[in-house]
């Protein structure tokens, strides 16, 4: 399954004095099983775009073809779309509401009309997949859990729907460094086991550099850049102009290159930076 977005345009408050064009001729494709990162400064259109992908918003014009269905067409059932496209909002733990973790995660699958056995099986699977122990927390109140755990439960609620496309909007915002790392590893694991399309919207360039196959950069409602993390993050000036940044490791290595060091282009992660630093520092030590 793939996603084809063609010439998507969305205008808020059209015809009113404060009308604003949120998306303008946005086109991109996502291949089956691809992990895509979406970056862009606040107000660049990221949220508007992902809300179109699961049918929460309808475009002014353009099409979104998921598999072989154009979801912008009037005859498409929203329920079918939302079953296939799971969207995890920012701070999803605010949406927890049930008395037990089990019931909270079961809410979505139950509404799909599955049998109790099927629902239970999905709930257990989803909770284990987000790295929590079902036997330990299944019957506990979600409100007793830590911040990172609550967020995982909320994500489990979406995973339990077995979406073909999983969209996560800033899934690590406000988490401490350990919980941040754990949630990222969880997302990676879900992507690897479910082999679904995963779309990660994030302000954290380190995470994007580490995880995704392809980056979409949005600016003023358009796709401003598209490519592998290495291609995108090699254009530091362009990103900076858009209010974005580089991964910390890339930024530091660029500074060293500007100071006259012969440093390889395209360093993205801490590990890559380390290898490069050893290469430039070691000869001096030995000599």
């Amino acid at each position: 399954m793939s996603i084809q977005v063609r010439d998507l345009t969305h205008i808020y408050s059209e015809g009113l004095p404060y009308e604003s064009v949120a998306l303008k001729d946005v086109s991109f494709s996502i291949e089956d099983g691809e992990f895509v990162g979406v970056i862009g400064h606040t107000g660049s259109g990221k949220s508007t775009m992902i809300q179109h992908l699961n049918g929460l918003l309808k475009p002014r014009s353009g099409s979104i073809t998921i598999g072989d269905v154009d979801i912008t067409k009037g005859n498409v059932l929203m329920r079918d779309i939302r079953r296939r496209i799971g969207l995890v909002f920012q701070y999803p733990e605010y949406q927890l509401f049930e008395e037990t973790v089990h019931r909270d995660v079961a809410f979505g699958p139950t509404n799909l009309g599955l049998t109790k056995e099927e629902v239970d099986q999905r709930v257990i699977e989803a909770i284990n997949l987000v790295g929590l122990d079902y036997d330990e927390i299944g019957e506990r109140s979600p409100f007793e859990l830590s911040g990172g755990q609550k967020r995982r439960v909320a994500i489990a609620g979406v995973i339990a729907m077995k979406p073909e496309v999983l969209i996560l909007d800033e899934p690590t915002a406000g988490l401490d460094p350990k919980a941040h790392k754990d949630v990222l590893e969880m997302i990676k694991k879900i992507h690897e086991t479910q082999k679904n399309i995963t779309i990660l919207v994030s302000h954290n360039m380190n995470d994007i550099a580490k995880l995704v196959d392809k980056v979409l950069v949005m600016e003023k409602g358009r796709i401003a850049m598209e490519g592998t993390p290495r291609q995108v993050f090699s254009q530091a000036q362009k990103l900076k102009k858009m209010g974005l940044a580089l991964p910390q490791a890339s930024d530091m290595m660029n500074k060293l290159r500007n100071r006259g060091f012969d440093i390889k282009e395209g360093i993205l992660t801490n590990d890559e930076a380390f290898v490069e630093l050893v290469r430039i520092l070691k000869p001096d030590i030995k000599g």
Partner: protein
Amino acid sequence: MDNIIEIDNLIFEYKRDEDREVIRAVDQVSLNIERGSFVAIIGRNGSGKSTLAKNINALLLPTFGEVNVDGFNTRDESALWKIRQTAGMVFQNPDNQLVSSIVEDDVAFGPENLGIEPKEIRKRVDESLKAVGMYEERMKAPHLLSGGQKQRIAIAGVVAMKPKCIILDEPTAMLDPKGRDEVMAIIKKLHKEGITILLITHFMDEAARADRVIIMDKGCIVMDGQPKQVFARADEIRKLSLDVPLPVELAERLRQEGIAVPPEIITAEEMVEFICQYK
């Protein structure tokens, strides 16, 4: 030493309503904050950082112990407004803090409530907006601004109260990279102008820019010192669900390779300067 905040054996407990179980969020914390300093507080989710902060400006009152802000005890109800004016708070989500439909009205909200005369309010609003670089946007509607800009407006609203201390609870958690830079630059500037800064954050590189880093865990202070002293204890920090800034991690790994990176290197700039000696 001249302290603006003195916390003596603070305990804060609350009852969880379902089972009436008593939760101790802050456990016997004693802490002095020196006037004019820039202190970062870090710690895992639920470690008691925000509860401690809310005890400082009397949003919460101690179960046991004392909190004094610029000489006023937070239990003294008659000093409440004095305390809130002295120690202003900025929270994580800018959308929850803005109250007006025009930027300058929003900034004027605090001083108006203090009963300050209109002429002085006008002056303070202009000054505060200039201090955060948002004077040009003063007639705009806050909801049309970016996250970083909204957060600067929230800071301006606090600055207009002429506080001696500003407590910021994860002010950059929801911001894009530019917004984060903007807010951090404003914090640095206000600190230079003499305002005491208390910054709660999950970003280790932000904490590295403070004069002093305090780590909380399970309601207690477990580390307290200059950033370079605290971040030198990388293994302990990781056990507390935290991390060290990237340059500290790189320095640690380079040392294992036999490269003698000095312990005071904790920011990217310092790391770049150090490596340049090898050119």
